């Protein structure tokens, strides 16, 4: 059950992002799990509840988006979804390809935090809130590790 380790890292990452945004708690986490990441969504969900206990993330909804595997075919010059992960070949021309462009992600995409003022008659504008910018830098590039989810942008 490595999902428990993954869940623990997930909760840490989300708590950290919330803290930077000045939010005391998180109401929803959206994660992207590549089909090749070897993380099972059900197992992650189960472990997540355990890992979230006593953290700002406790009680937050977990929304998992499964990312299908896409490969790049140098002959067709296209990035296409695999038909089955038991055969890594171009779905168009059939040529084998090991160039995986999507499907290894293990990523916290976004978090939802309550807006800062809770009174029904409060102004709609969220004056005191921090800017709507990513609180952390983007995943860094040029990592030789094969699981880095950086290469997913199309070519």
């Amino acid at each position: 059950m490595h999902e428990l380790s993954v869940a623990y890292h997930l909760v840490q990452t989300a708590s950290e992002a919330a803290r930077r945004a000045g939010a005391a708690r998180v109401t929803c986490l959206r994660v992207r799990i590549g089909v090749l990441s070897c993380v099972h969504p059900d197992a992650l969900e189960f472990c997540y509840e355990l890992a979230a206990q006593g953290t700002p993330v406790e009680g937050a909804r977990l929304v998992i988006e499964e990312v299908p595997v896409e490969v790049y075919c140098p002959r067709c010059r296209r990035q296409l979804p695999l038909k089955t992960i038991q055969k890594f070949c171009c779905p168009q021309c059939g040529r084998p390809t090991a160039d995986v462009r999507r499907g290894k992600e293990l990523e916290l995409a976004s978090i939802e935090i309550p807006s800062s003022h809770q009174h029904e008659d409060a102004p709609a504008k969220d004056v005191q809130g921090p800017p709507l910018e990513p609180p952390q830098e983007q995943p860094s590039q040029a990592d030789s590790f094969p699981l880095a989810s950086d290469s997913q942008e199309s070519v």
Partner: protein
Amino acid sequence: MSRVPRILEVRTRILKKNDELARQMRQEFLAAGVFVVNLVSSPGTGKTRLLEETLVRLQAQGWRVAAVVGDLETDNDARRLARSGAPVRQIQTHGCCHLEAHMVQEHLKGWILDSFDFLFIENIGNLVCPTSWDLGESLRVALMSVTEGEDKPLKYPGLFNTSDAVVITKTDLAEACEFSPALARQNLEAVRPGVPILETSAKTGQGVAQWVEFLCRRRGELLQPNRAPMTSLRP
């Protein structure tokens, strides 16, 4: 007015901490000239047995080698490997089903990386969990034994697809198991086109020399290409 929750884009890898540590370790390994190999397979595939043989042969050629070996509870594997005379350390994970970068880092403390040419990491016997964890290795090798059947790659595409090489072990038992190397290769090629495939029997020694040669070639390609083993460098 409604209490519309705010959505913050985070877009961060969940295992970022591990990935960053692994990247830093990889840089240190390369700077020190250590070629690091991460061995992954199901329990009992023959990681330790092949590694015992590998450590002996590499040392006989003058290479300086070391190994860390992950195990849930025991230190049996470390004791087996230490018979080769190489420095060996055991990582007991107490139930954790995979190694993480920080575990490896902690167990390297006190070793001088510059004094090794090869470092082997024997992962916990498991074909799923180790997949997501970068350990800073330069080469991830998946092993499958002839006794496990030809379709392991199809059942665990995640692991085989992220491996840099595959070793088919226990080939001395192939006939008894009616194992078809051709079918196994076909399945490996399906989930990881172009992956180098080696066949070994640690028992008879068949294919082990090619495996050792493969490691040395890969090391040479990555590190100083003309670097010879220690004995010829330092008389």
